[in-house]
């Protein structure tokens, strides 16, 4: 339990620093900054009591916002992603009674991981850019930015999920 909590806290700090100090300065193709901090949502252990999860996601987004002066856009998008993560996972795994205590995302088949990560990441970016532009006239711009940024984020997240799996395997 405590080890899990420590792991989560460490991951939180690491991802916040990585996102704000390095990834937000990348500007790939002039405007793409991958939002790798979303990895936190995917690696968070699945519990039945999900209130903590929502709070932690909110603070994760808010921390990113404080650094990048963006109001509450990351907080809102991250909370929405966290809220939708379990229902989507249940639909994808096609079962109601999977043993979520033993569940590990990296043990699932590649295709399922890809679909799960892609769906949630795209949802996150739609929320993110809708909050940022905050206008219905810019819907084309929102979709365009959400799609391009998602692509890069998805590649990074899937890679990181496999990397973290390897780390855990060597540790134990």
């Amino acid at each position, binding site marked *: 339990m405590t080890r899990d909590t420590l792991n989560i806290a460490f991951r939180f700090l690491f991802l916040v620093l990585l996102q704000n100090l390095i990834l937000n300065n990348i500007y790939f193709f002039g405007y793409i900054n991958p939002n790798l901090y979303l990895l936190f949502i995917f690696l968070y252990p699945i519990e039945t009591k999900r209130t903590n999860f929502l709070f932690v996601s909110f603070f994760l*987004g808010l921390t990113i916002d404080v650094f990048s002066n963006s109001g509450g856009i990351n907080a809102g998008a991250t909370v929405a992603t966290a809220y939708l993560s379990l229902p989507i996972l249940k639909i994808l795994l096609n079962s109601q009674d999977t043993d979520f205590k033993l569940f590990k995302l990296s043990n699932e088949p590649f295709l399922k991981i890809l679909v799960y990560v892609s769906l949630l990441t795209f949802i996150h970016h739609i929320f993110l850019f809708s909050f940022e532009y905050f206008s219905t006239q810019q819907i084309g711009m929102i979709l365009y930015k959400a799609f391009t940024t998602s692509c890069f984020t998805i590649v990074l997240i899937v890679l990181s999920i496999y990397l973290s799996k390897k780390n855990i395997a060597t540790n134990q």
Partner: protein
Amino acid sequence: MQQIAYFIKKYNYFLLFLLLEFISVALTIRSHSYHRSKFINSTYSITGKLLDISMSIFEYGHLKSDNFRLAEENAKLRTLMDTYSKGEIILDTAKIKNKFVAAKVIQNSYTKQNNVLTIDKGQSDGILEDMGVANSSGIIGIINNTSAKYATVLSVLNENSKINAKLKNNNYFGTLTWNGKDHRYSQLLDIQRQANIKIGDTVVTGGKSIVFPENIPIGKIKRFDASNKNYSNIEIELFNDMSNLGFVYVIENIDKKEILDLRNND
């Protein structure tokens, strides 16, 4: 009553979700209005320090262009010095209208809808809200929030930024805004039809505001549409490359308090 309690108990997870979303939207809307992003901004000492460290890693990337800009500015200032009567230095401080404080940009954004920069000088260096920020190539923005050591700058690439601008060759003035599309271009509104504008005309800051002194360069006219009644879609190509900012000047208008007092008396 019992039913309400039951409802809350049953849907508490969903209600919490709604509450958190509501807070996020409220914070976002607050950040959209100037001077109201008091809590969520990067002027805290810890965020400032971390951004400072991060910038010290990345700044080597544009040292070359920074040096070039400084050399160019030195050359310009030297020519100016030559044209003024030699050896005569202004000793009377009453003649000095503006004070300049040099600062470093430690966090820059230019691809968002509302871009905000962070600089490494704050109240302890005499920086207050509503001061103008520029470098030798042109204007950058206006100070939005300050802490003891850091300050955020509302970039010209921000929907809320409205800067008084005029044409350099005559005195017709308008308002500089940004439509959120391209960080190289800004838009100029409210130019009178009588003003005879041409592509390539230089646009500078007007003397109407107390934030910027007159004649700080902004950009040149890239294209515009003209009808019988008015000009529309005037695109200004900014002199400043907003994606590559190193050192900047914060401009303090010394007479600002006096001007504000006068205006309040009316």
